[in-house]
């Protein structure tokens, strides 16, 4: 409107400020642990300050002080993160501005800015965690923020009504959310280069192995990946003894550390399938390393992957998001019968100066057994079995000649010790050998039939190359602690060894609960968090939308949203008239009289109406006076005084009877 005055935003009332403050606290609290400590403290202090000001009805600090605080805060963030660009500094800046905005919140427009910032901050939480708990907290935050928006625009609304309304509206928004979530054409991010700090390191297998590195991992309960078998093993899993999930293959040894060898990658399988196939889908948690895990030996290469010359599946880029891929493995494949000489040379390499005792023993065996490679392997496994080797999570620290010390002195070790000792001895005896790391076994969740492989299932084993047979898997740990392979880690550890809480038999019920929770978390991961473009295509194809592209999706999406809106509109319109029976009767009465030329004026009360019309009745109409007076009287009593329900029913009957009588009278 051209003559409308320039918009001036109304000042905030105390009630509105209080609501905004409450919202700010609820939105900020879940984010606080992820901010730098000094910033969390600073923002918390600002909020406390704001709370005190609110409590005392004191005025807000002067603007220059805020400007100083903004500059100080921004400088602090820039110093802390060595810059202002990227995800973490961005979130930190947003949190700082959010807190400071509370201190200069004067008008409704400022309040609205706080609400929008609040929605933003709610989103930034998801950078750090996206589990079910987070989602619940977020929902509470969004409900409160929305109620605040109601109060902000309509300050006279009572608190209960605002909250109820916000809840109702969010409930009505859920169908829209579901439709959009399923059908909105997904784009695989990132849209532009992500800042370096987008991912922070997590536990997982690394590209090297020193004594103790895997036993450290086995204390972690974190999930490495899940596998869901189909076909023959639908809803269950193959025997533990074949569940070797191949990870980094370590063939370089410098005397202490095992490292990745030189490999070539290819998109073609270096071997031919043989024996029975096992089909399954792997959902890999992000681990920021390139390897993809599969049962030995994989026979399909996922779309996002390649295969290395040591039969390790590699992703084309580090796994930064939860990744799901279909796999087929053949446990009986013979691989590397015609192995390249360079690879075999690498598998024989040993540093000259270390571990003389082990070397001597291996050479002695070779001299005794001649060309009998299998004999040497058997001799080594017997060595582990006969001597009193102990399988333990907390082996003693080893010195320079780590293999010597382990084999002949301490004799206590974890899988990396056993496999490293074995491979060392094989190489010393002239048999090509290498260490394979990965995961062994897994835990079948009886609730949903997925196999959960945790970091604690990390394992290291060995591979030896025999002429005419290729690479053979040998697990030296099985010689010492066969239960580790057949059952799991918890059973294999001697009694009294510290083990994870849930691995203790007395906590079975807790374990059951964890299974349930984990099944739920898996569904959440698969269908909510893991809902990516690929998943969307699969789902829509299953729902009968062949080759869904974004045009089709948008069309269907628009259709669904339109139907929803239409449905709600119809509901909104047809809910409108639910009049009380008294009102219905009164309306009928007014209508009857209006037809006789005696309409009620909209502003007339019942008595005023009766008085006016009874004064103007014609002679024929004057017989109606008694009924009219009585109806008006009953209506007024039912409408404006308190009557007992029984009496009300009786009165209403009387009223309706008289109205019908009036209706039947000739006009």
């Amino acid at each position: 409107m051209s003559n409308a005055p320039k918009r001036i935003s109304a000042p905030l009332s105390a009630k509105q400020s209080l609501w905004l403050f409450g919202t700010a606290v609820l939105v900020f609290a879940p984010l606080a642990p992820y901010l730098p400590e000094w910033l969390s403290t600073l923002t918390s202090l600002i909020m406390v300050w704001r709370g005190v000001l609110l409590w005392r009805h004191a005025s807000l600090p002067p603007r220059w002080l805020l400007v100083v605080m903004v500059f100080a805060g921004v400088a602090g963030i820039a110093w802390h993160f060595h810059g202002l660009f990227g995800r973490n500094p961005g979130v930190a800046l947003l949190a700082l501005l959010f807190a400071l905005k509370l201190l200069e919140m004067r008008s409704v427009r400022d309040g609205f800015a706080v609400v929008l910032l609040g929605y933003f901050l709610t989103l930034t939480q998801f950078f750090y965690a996206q589990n079910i708990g987070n989602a619940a907290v977020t929902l509470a935050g969004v409900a409160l923020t929305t109620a605040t928006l109601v109060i902000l625009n309509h300050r006279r609304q009572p608190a209960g009504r605002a909250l109820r309304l916000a809840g109702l509206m969010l409930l009505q928004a859920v169908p829209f959310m579901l439709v959009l979530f399923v059908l909105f054409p997904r784009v695989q991010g990132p849209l532009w280069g992500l800042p370096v700090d987008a991912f922070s390191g997590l536990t997982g297998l690394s590209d090297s192995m020193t004594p103790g590195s895997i036993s450290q991992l086995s204390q972690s309960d974190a999930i490495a990946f899940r596998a869901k078998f189909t076909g023959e093993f639908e809803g269950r899993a193959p025997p533990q003894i074949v569940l070797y999930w191949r990870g980094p293959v370590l063939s370089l040894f410098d005397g202490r550390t095992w490292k990745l060898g030189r490999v070539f990658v290819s998109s073609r399988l270096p071997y031919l399938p043989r024996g029975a196939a096992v089909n399954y889908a792997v959902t890999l948690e992000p681990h920021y390393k390139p390897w993809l895990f599969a049962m030995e030996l994989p026979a399909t290469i996922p779309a996002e992957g390649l295969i290395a010359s040591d039969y390790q599946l590699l992703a084309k880029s580090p796994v930064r998001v939860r990744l799901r891929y279909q796999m087929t493995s053949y446990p009986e494949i013979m691989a590397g019968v015609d192995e390249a000489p360079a690879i075999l040379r690498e598998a024989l390499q040993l540093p000259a100066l270390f571990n003389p005792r082990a070397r001597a023993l291996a050479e002695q065996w070779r001299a005794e057994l001649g060309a009998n490679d299998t004999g040497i392997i058997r001799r080594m496994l017997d060595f582990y079995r006969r001597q009193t080797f102990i399988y333990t999570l907390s082996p003693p620290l080893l010195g320079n000649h780590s293999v010597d010390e382990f084999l002949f002195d301490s004799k206590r070790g974890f899988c990396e010790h056993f496999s490293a000792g074995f491979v060392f001895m094989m190489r010393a005896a002239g048999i090509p050998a290498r260490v394979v790391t990965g995961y062994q076994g897994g835990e079948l969740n009886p609730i949903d039939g997925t196999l959960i492989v945790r970091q604690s299932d990390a394992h290291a084993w060995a591979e030896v190359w025999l002429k005419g047979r290729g690479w053979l898997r040998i697990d030296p740990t099985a010689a010492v602690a066969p239960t580790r392979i057949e059952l799991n880690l918890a059973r294999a550890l001697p009694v009294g060894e510290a083990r994870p809480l849930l691995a203790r038999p007395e906590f079975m019920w807790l374990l059951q609960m964890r299974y349930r929770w984990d099944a739920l978390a898996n569904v959440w991961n698969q269908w909510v968090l893991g809902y990516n473009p690929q998943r969307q295509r699969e789902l829509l194809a299953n729902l009968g939308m062949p080759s869904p592209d974004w045009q089709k999706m948008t069309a269907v999406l628009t259709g669904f949203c339109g139907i929803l809106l239409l449905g709600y509109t119809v509901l909104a319109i047809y809910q409108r008239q639910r009049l009380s029976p008294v009102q219905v009767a009164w309306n009928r009465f007014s209508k009857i009289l209006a037809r006789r030329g005696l309409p009620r004026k909209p502003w007339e009360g019942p008595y005023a109406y009766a008085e006016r019309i009874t004064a103007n009745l014609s002679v024929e109409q004057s017989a109606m006076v008694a009924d009219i007076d009585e109806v008006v009287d009953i209506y007024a009593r039912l409408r404006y005084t308190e009557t007992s329900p029984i009496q009300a029913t009786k009165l209403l009957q009387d009223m309706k009877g008289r109205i019908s009588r009036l209706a039947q009278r000739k006009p």
Partner: protein
Amino acid sequence: MLASPVAFLQERFYRWALRGHPPEASPIRLTQRRIFVLPTRQGLAYAVSLLVMLIGAINYNLSLGHALVFLLAGLGATAILHTFRNLAYLQICPGRCEPVFAGEHARFGIVLANQRRESRPSVRLRLPGQVPVDVEIPGQASIEVGLELSTSSRGWLPLPRVTLETNYPLGLIRAWSYVAPDQRCLVYPSPASAAPPLPAMPGEGCGAAHQASGMEDFSGLRLHQPADPPRHVAWKSAARQTEGPLLTKQFSGAAAQTLWFDWEMLSAYGDTERCLSVMTRWICDAHAAGLTWGLRLPGKELAPASGNAHFHACLKLLALYE
């Protein structure tokens, strides 16, 4: 019009929105066809924020971020409905509208009837160029809202186009509708501030106000009528018999005290409006003093009488004088 094409278009829009023919018959019902819905500035800011959030969620592959943005988008969609619903099927009727003197504020009563069980909070009524009025209409009830409009000239003042709007509940969406109820306010001429004294009574030569009180002579009682001045009610007899009707004292010789306000007396002024203004002043003064007067305009005459009804009848005649 040419100078301001925007204003021209606006006027065309109003006319289209009212479907051409105001004023409308009452009750006016706000059906879905006549309610307009558009986002407010806040709503646009909200939409832009959601877009930015969506881009962030896509860029960082935040599945829950998608879910949050979609939930908030759904919230925006439901806000449209809630805002629309706050106006839809509201019933509007013209209410009371007392006559005013020119220069005073006319108060147009608008009766808003809510047949729904839930109340309709924050409904705003606005006349062009006036300060809006915010009301809440309780469930299954009707309220009367007074819309004030300044007046400048006598005659019928029609109620201009009324804008009913609401942005309840979230302030993101504005729903509005135009109504033009068939209502008009009678504007009396404004009483002249400097007027000649009341004209002398024929036959007498003295000030009317003085004479009127002295010459009254009680002649009897008759049934009370609402237009009788309160001072003529026979209060004493009313106090004696509580059951009976109110009676009015009648005075003989009333005709003798009758004033005549004649157009001819003011012919010296020449200016019609000025004459009307002076006459209005006289009528007001005479009414305040409880006198009886008659009015004589060219071609029209009101017999001498007193009381409220006569007072308003006279003023109406003046207001509508051609």
